[in-house]
């Protein structure tokens, strides 16, 4: 995935004589150091810059009436600089030279187009007539006759490469709309001439090329926004007849109807190209932007708008773009990573970051902070992310290694109180994962309040911290489980069932002190009364199973009740437990996945749960709108669904159990009464519906006065 990084200004551009701002600069060539560039403006000056420091190292100018006509280059062999002014005068100077008038001067017989400097070889001089000479050969006899290779053609672009230790120079020329490509090998001197396939509606705007395995690949950006790829073999040693080059479409950068203006093209690596250009689509305002394209998957990787306009020139040296933006020369750092399809379509981004950072946490727990792996991943991130990550790492290392529980709480509180970061959710996820991991390894460590606080940030889901609920189950932290069930949208059915099992099996007494949220029960249960009742039964009986036996005698007529409260209206569970069960009822589930786990419940648990559901059902039916008020109270549909599920899962068991008989009987009685009631309602609905249907017909009556308009 290619990204554009930071951007900074290298220098301001002076609109010097004879060069408007729009025309940009004459050339930008790499200096002897990778961090240096040599800038030649369209006037008299060449300047050497240190890019990272954004400062000039040296500046050389020709005399007042002279202009530099060929960008200055650096001879990598000698460290000297070479430039041409007034087309024919060659100047060579060193760093320590100040005045160009006084440096070595050679006047040539033909006009120079460009000088190409390559490492480990002599610079090549390309004349406007198409001839190529090495610099040393030229300097040996400056006045030698330079033959004219190309007749009326004008050179548009040139580039030099080293291929198998041989310098190769390629240049393109234009004549009357026809474009020609020349490939010049210097040693031995072989020139190939090719003709570019002509395009009707568009013309080439920019060229760029690279060589690999004796194959020269020329990329050509046309004004219709298409990038074409032209392959040329460098193997031929004998000059051939003029050939016509066929091109293949590599990339289409713009939609149809838009015209690309003043564009240039740069190759970043084998799969990425950068296009700088001005898109001119008539209804919109022309806007200039720099974009990186993946040629393998034809996707736009990133782009940057350049609102102040550019000269359409783009250079790229050492993972930096150089371009004129407005009146300054701007440097933009870029990064290109190997392209994969996932990266190309932008899918890889998230997983990559999360996965890598997730891995880091685990590694951090074992290794120290400065492990190369962590560093690597961190450097891959952007600046802002880096700070966050570091904070989290620091933070987590404290959690995970040795902070006491109180320290952790305090730290977390501080962290949450000034948490304004963009990826807050992910960060909370990391933290909670770290905490849970420590809980698992360290049995005494259980930062309850921290976990509650983190869950209440509402940004979590089960999948972010899969072990949290298991830990809570292990610690029988009912409040936390309730919170999880209420907050997490994606609790697996197995976990839901495990929670249900835990809730059903826990003794009501043990729940007395816990701070379970009772919001979901207060709408239908008098908490104080129930508390009292529960206490009574708890003192009389020991444990819920015996309580069940007592409750089982639900036939009101036969057994005199010890309590004043009618059995049917008595909740079989305490309010805390009821609240917990409501959390279960409220959670999302899929029937198919839930049923097998539901079978794990013991018979006693089933009966208790069924009893509670029946209680809810009856309570619910008392209400006219069939639903309890309040946010988290279960709806009648949820109650019915769970009742059906429970009976489905345990039907045989329930039928066999003698203690369930009464329960089933009363349930059946109630359901039957409900069914009868609803069938009556059905009838009423039917007749009312009929009434409504016949109404519009009867509406007219025997006489009416109506308005009618005929148009």
């Amino acid at each position, binding site marked *: 995935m290619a990204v554009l990084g930071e951007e900074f200004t290298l220098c301001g551009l002076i609109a010097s004589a004879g060069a408007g701002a729009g025309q940009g600069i004459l050339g930008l060539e790499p200096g002897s150091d990778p961090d240096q560039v040599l800038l030649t403006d369209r006037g008299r000056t060449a300047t050497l810059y240190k890019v990272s420091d954004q400062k000039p190292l040296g500046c050389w100018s020709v005399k007042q009436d002279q202009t530099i006509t060929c960008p200055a280059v650096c001879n990598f062999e000698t460290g000297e600089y070479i430039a041409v002014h007034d087309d024919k005068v060659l100047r060579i100077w060193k760093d320590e030279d100040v005045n160009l008038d006084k440096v070595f001067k050679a006047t040539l017989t033909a006009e120079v187009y460009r000088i190409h400097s390559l490492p480990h070889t002599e610079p090549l001089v390309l004349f406007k007539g198409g001839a190529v000479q090495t610099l040393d050969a030229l300097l040996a006899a400056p006045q030698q006759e330079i033959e004219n290779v190309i007749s009326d053609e004008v050179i548009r672009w040139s580039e030099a490469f080293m291929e198998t230790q041989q310098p190769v120079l390629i240049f393109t020329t234009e004549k009357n709309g026809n474009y020609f490509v020349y490939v010049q090998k210097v040693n031995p001197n072989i020139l190939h001439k090719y003709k570019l396939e002509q395009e009707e509606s568009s013309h080439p705007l920019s060229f760029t090329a690279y060589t690999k395995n004796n194959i020269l690949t020329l990329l050509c950006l046309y004004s219709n926004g298409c990038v074409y790829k032209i392959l040329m073999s460098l193997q031929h040693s004998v000059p051939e007849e003029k050939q016509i080059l066929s091109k293949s479409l590599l990339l289409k950068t713009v939609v149809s109807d838009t015209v690309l203006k003043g564009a240039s093209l740069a190759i970043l690596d084998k799969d990425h190209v950068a296009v700088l250009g001005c898109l001119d689509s008539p209804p919109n305002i022309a806007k200039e932007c720099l974009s990186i394209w993946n040629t393998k998957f034809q996707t736009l990787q990133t782009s940057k708008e350049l609102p102040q306009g550019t000269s359409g020139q783009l250079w790229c040296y050492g993972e930096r773009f150089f371009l004129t933006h407005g009146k300054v020369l701007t440097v933009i750092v870029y990064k290109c990573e190997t392209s994969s399809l996932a990266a190309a379509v932008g899918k890889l981004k998230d997983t990559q970051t999360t996965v890598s950072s997730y891995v880091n946490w685990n590694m951090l727990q074992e290794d120290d902070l400065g492990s190369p792996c962590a560093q690597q991943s961190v450097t891959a991130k952007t600046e802002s992310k880096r700070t966050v990550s570091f904070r989290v790492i620091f933070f987590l290392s404290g959690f995970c290694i040795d902070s006491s529980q109180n320290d952790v709480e305090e730290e977390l509180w501080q962290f949450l109180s000034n948490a304004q970061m963009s990826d807050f959710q992910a960060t909370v996820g990391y933290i909670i994962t770290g905490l849970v991991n420590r809980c698992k390894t360290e049995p005494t460590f259980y930062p309850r309040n921290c976990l509650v606080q983190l869950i209440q940030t509402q940004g979590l889901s089960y999948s972010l911290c899969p072990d949290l609920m298991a830990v809570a189950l292990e610690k029988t932290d009912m409040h936390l489980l309730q919170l999880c069930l209420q907050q997490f949208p994606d609790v697996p059915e197995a976990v839901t069932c495990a929670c249900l099992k835990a809730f059903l099996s826990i003794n009501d007494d043990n729940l007395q002190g816990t701070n379970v949220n009772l919001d979901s029960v207060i709408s239908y249960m008098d908490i104080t009364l129930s508390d009292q009742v529960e206490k009574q039964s708890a003192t009389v009986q020991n444990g819920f199973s015996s309580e069940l036996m007592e409750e089982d005698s639900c036939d009101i007529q036969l057994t005199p009740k010890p309590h004043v409260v009618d059995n049917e209206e008595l909740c079989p569970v305490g309010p805390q437990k009821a609240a917990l069960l409501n959390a279960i009822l409220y959670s999302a589930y899929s029937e198919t996945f839930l049923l097998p786990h539901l079978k794990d419940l013991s018979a006693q648990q089933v009966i208790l749960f069924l009893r509670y559901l029946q209680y809810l059902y009856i309570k619910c039916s008392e209400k006219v709108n069939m639903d309890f008020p309040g946010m988290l109270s279960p709806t009648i549909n949820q109650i019915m669904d769970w009742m059906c599920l429970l009976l489905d899962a345990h039907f045989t068991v329930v039928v066999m159990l003698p203690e369930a008989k009464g329960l089933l009987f009363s349930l059946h009685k109630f359901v039957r009464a409900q069914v009868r009631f609803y069938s009556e309602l059905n009838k009423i609905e039917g007749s009312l519906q009929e009434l409504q249907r016949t109404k519009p017909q009867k*509406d*007219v*009556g*025997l*006489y*009416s*006065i*109506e*308005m*009618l*308009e*005929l*148009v």
Partner: protein
Amino acid sequence: MGEFQVHRVRFFAYVPAGIRCLAHSPRSGRLALARTDGALEVYNLAANYFQEKGIPGHETRTTEALCWAAGDRLFGAGLGGDISEYDLEKLRVKYSLDGFGGPIWSMAADPSGTQLAVGCEDGSVKLFQVLPDKIQFERSLDRQKGRIMSLSWHPSGTRIAVGSIDLLRVFDVKSGHAIQRILVDRRPQGLYSRECVVWSVAFLSDGTIVSSDSVGKVQFWDSEKGTLLETHPVSSSAVLCLAVSEEEDSIVVGTSEGAVYQFQLLPVKWGSAESKWVRTKPFQHHTHDVRAVAHSATALISGGLDAQLVIRPLMERMHGKGYDAALRKFTFPHRRLVSCARKDRLLLFQFPQHLELWRLGATNSAGKDGDILPVSRAPEHLLQLKSKGPEHICCSCISLCGSWIAYSTASRLHLHRVHLENGSVSVKRVSKVPKLLYSAHQLLFSADSTSLFVASDQGAVHVLKLLEPGDCGHLQTLRPNSGSAQAVYLLTASVDGDWLAAAGGDWEINVYSLRHFKPHCTVPAYNCAVTALAIHPVTNNLVITHSDQQVFEFSIPNREYTTWSRKVQQHGLHKGWLERDTPITHITFNPKQPAHILLHDTHMFCILDKSLPLPDDATPLMNQTTLKQLSEKARRSYAHAFKICKKYQPLLFVDLLEEGSLVVVERPLMDIKTQLPPPVQQKKFGT
């Protein structure tokens, strides 16, 4: 275009009488129909089944059988024991003759049309000779026991098959003896069995007798051997009637469950000479007994006690798509039963034996299209006029001012002076109505209520002068120059009192000048029945509609069709207009919009705007809903001459009152059904 305050009237409690028998005359293309109240109607099958003629009913006359004989003479016989001949020119019973055999259940004319066979209650079959002006008793065949329910002549005219209770007989006409006696199966019911009434028989030329009986079977018998050939149980209740096509390859039967079945004689195998009768098509268009069926060349015609005449075309006998190719149902007469006094907003409803006068209600609010306005004053039933005597009313009219009511029975014309003064109604009968020679077939008051036009026999129109405070005298009798024999059944007069147009049974339209009391001109003959006439109040153009749905406009002053009418004929009317079901029965005009003609049939009313272009077949005829969605400007390009409203159905009458008010009289079929006796109980799936 026009916004109307529509008075939607549904309190006209008209119930058409059930259909008792049908007689189809293939020669003249006419269908005679007798109703249970004794009324007779003649439909012209060629003229889109237009009800050409109507003879009002009679209390004591119940027609059980109808037959065409001796050309186009129509005979009827009923339970009164009389055989009558109908005068289809003067639209009344020509004469009656006692059969002296008790109630007559059946009658059939012999194939040559010279003899009538009558089946009587006393078990006798009597033969009557049809003479040019009368019928004469010839002889009786051997009298047997049991009433004769049905009879049918053999196409050779030598045999008569007779259906009675439990048995069939075959008589030899020459000798008068019964030569064959066939017992029909009774319906087993417990220990006893119920008698089997042979409701209908047909004698085919190959000697096969087809019978339909109360057991619900259609059976085929060999008349020579007296054996049963085929039996087809059709219904669990009675099969009441059957009719055979002329080619004897198709039979239609009607059951008391309202179903109609077709039987066809089809080869057993493809190309085989052996054929068999097969029950092919069932139709259920009636809710009640199908008492009569007829088989025309192209259609099955059935009529039942639910008063519907259903014409079901046989598609295999149709060539192309036309008016005849669609299913037709007629419930309402093609005559005007309502008349309107526009100024006082009075409606006069004509029932068989009484008239009702109603005053429309009023509203004092306004609204927009589709609104139902609150009724500030309810409609008022002002008057009920009972006709004395057994004769039914054949026509009625109220004057435009609402002060005169005239009605006529077959023998008498009645005229009443009505005084409406602040709520109280008083009626005075005009005693000295001139005794006219013949009955009135149509009545019309002049626009200024000074004269009454009485349409009569032989194309004559009598003009009676109305005198205040309640008197009248005969002024003139207008007769056509052509000397037509047919009765006039449509009248219209111009508002200025100068012109009167009358259409008679021979479809001739005569225009009379009322200033000179003499014929002015005759509208060029058009070969189709006239269904409605009206004279434009401003231009004195006569608008004529025909049963083939053509519309003509004839300029009376210029004695020629108007340019618009010529344009219509040249352009042709819209397909959708021509394929409509029922004829236009009333035309009226909007004096404020001279270019508008208001027409209506049973299923729609239409404002015909002459100023707009005529639609061609590509544009939809019914475009009101589309137009209403368009902007004012866009409407102009889409609008065409026919502005049709189908909101009110079925329509018996539409008229324009003053000030943009419209009165529509609807009679929902559902309301009629509730008045009918319960049909035969049938088990329906799902009930």
